[in-house]
């Protein structure tokens, strides 16, 4: 199993203000890592560090065995695709134009995307089953459709590692399920997936591993059944939950 993403002794945060430290991580192809944590727990800071948008305060991130800091930006983009939370579009780009932007790292500085790039964008659009939306304007789509378009853009990058920041945030129930199903299907095809969520139940549904962040940088990591326990969630979120087995997996229900 190829290791797609590694972190060793990773400290993340801002100069003079550490958010988390000592994170070790290794994610292989076909694995889905769900990152859970409270608001302000550092999920976004961790993601920005993993993406190389924020400098690591300690340790390092490695992509397919190579240090993130040593790779040029365009090479990082070819290896790791990013789906931001709540993409805000100011202009009415079509889905096809947006997915095509995923090809940036493959297009020369002064060039426009060529036939190969267009074909890659079409494949990504087809892979997400949004061919019917290709000429629609992104800002006019529903939240779920927009999220699928953003995932298609990450696929068009040619990256085998996908990082998604709260991909189900502000989606309705059906679209949440659709996005999770998409993530699991991509993992089955050999992609490595990292996503953050506010719902511990999603880890049981879609993830093979869980990273639980608490304020102050405490970390727990492991299989969903090991990490998502009533005790751990009480510590992190300060609420009572019940974990119950159901159809070979588990569900996580809060107790009011």
């Amino acid at each position, binding site marked *: 199993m190829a290791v797609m993403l590694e972190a060793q002794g990773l400290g993340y945060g801002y100069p003079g203000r550490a958010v988390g430290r000592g994170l070790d991580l290794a994610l292989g192809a076909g694995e889905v890592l769900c990152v859970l944590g409270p608001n302000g727990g550092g999920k976004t800071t961790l993601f920005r560090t993993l993406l190389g948008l924020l400098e690591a305060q300690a340790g390092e991130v490695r992509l397919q065995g190579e240090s993130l800091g040593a790779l040029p*930006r365009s090479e990082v983009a070819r290896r790791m695709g990013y789906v931001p939370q709540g993409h805000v579009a100011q202009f009415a780009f079509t889905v096809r134009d947006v997915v095509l932007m995923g090809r940036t790292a493959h297009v020369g500085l002064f060039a426009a995307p060529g036939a190969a790039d267009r074909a890659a964008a079409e494949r990504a659009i087809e892979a997400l089953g949004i061919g019917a939306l290709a000429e629609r304007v992104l800002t006019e789509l529903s939240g779920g459709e927009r999220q699928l378009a953003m995932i298609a853009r990450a696929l068009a990058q040619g990256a085998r590692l996908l990082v998604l920041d709260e991909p189900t945030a502000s989606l309705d129930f059906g679209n949440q399920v659709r996005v999770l199903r998409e993530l699991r299907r991509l993992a089955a095809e050999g992609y490595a997936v990292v996503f953050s969520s506010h719902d511990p139940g999603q880890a049981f549904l879609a993830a093979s591993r869980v990273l639980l962040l608490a304020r102050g940088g405490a970390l727990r990591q492991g299989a969903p059944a090991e990490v998502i326990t009533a005790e751990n969630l009480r510590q992190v979120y300060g609420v009572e939950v019940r974990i119950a087995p159901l159809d070979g997996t588990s569900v996580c229900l809060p107790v009011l």
Partner: protein
Amino acid sequence: MTRRSRAVVYAIAALGLLVLTVLAFGAGRFALSLAELGALAANQLFGAGYEVAPTAETVVLQVRGPRILAALLVGAALAAAGTAYQGMFRNPLVSPDILGVSAGAALGAVLGIFFSQSALVIQLGAFAGGLAAVGLVYAVGANVRRHDPILSLILAGIVLGTLLGAFIALIKYLADPYNQLPAITYWLLGSLAAVAPSDLALAAPFALAGLVPLYLLRWRMNLLSLSDDEARALGVPVGRLRFAVVCAATLMTAAAVAISGIIGWVGLLIPHAARMLVGPEFSRLLPLAMVLGAAFLLAVDTLARTVAPIEVPPGVLTALIGTPFFLWLFVSARRAWQ
């Protein structure tokens, strides 16, 4: 919008520009017929030797020619700069006036007029002023930490623009009221009436130097409309790209201001109009915006010199057309300006 309907839009725009240009050559106090224009063109281009009144030749070659060329150049340059600024600042309501470029260029030129310098020095002053203003704004924006970098740039531009406006007001106050003040006021209003071929020859290379990078980066420009994190994650060195585009758009603005003074609204309206027609994708948007900008300013300038016995400053006309259009956009068509 399909490829074919886009092609139709481009074709109509280009044809419209051509018709307008011919009309502009013909219209005016000394009206010229299509036949006269044709004979003149044949003489000039192919040495055909048709008989043409010498006055007609002077009007076309010395008076209207440079003025029409200037309108085309200034309109296209302002529209291109506006398109770039709007995409880059992810804000469809900005224009070349942002970043204090126009104000800086104006101050440079007004200083030149105040010190009774030659036209060449006045123009160079406009270039230097525009570039200095954007350099200052950029330096301020880059050194403000912990703020949205886009917002810092825009605010720095507005603040500097106000300061430059104060300096301009001071110079107007001090200027000789019989000689310099009318010249300054006229220039600040924006006009193409006094354009000489030498002005064009001076400004055109600057405009071209700004256009080339915009054309080369025409597809990559789209990525500046994403958030910085997104664009960087897609492999774009955002800071360097934005710097290159700011420089290019500023060069084009300064070139336009140096020829015509400050003509407002073109850089705001035309990118909107073009975006409504072909969408926001920059490589499709830029050529259309330039054609529409050239056509718009040519139409406005032709009206300015024919509609009344005296010349109306074109800046006044663009504001008369621009304000209602802008309000209409703002109130009714939120979708369209996106």
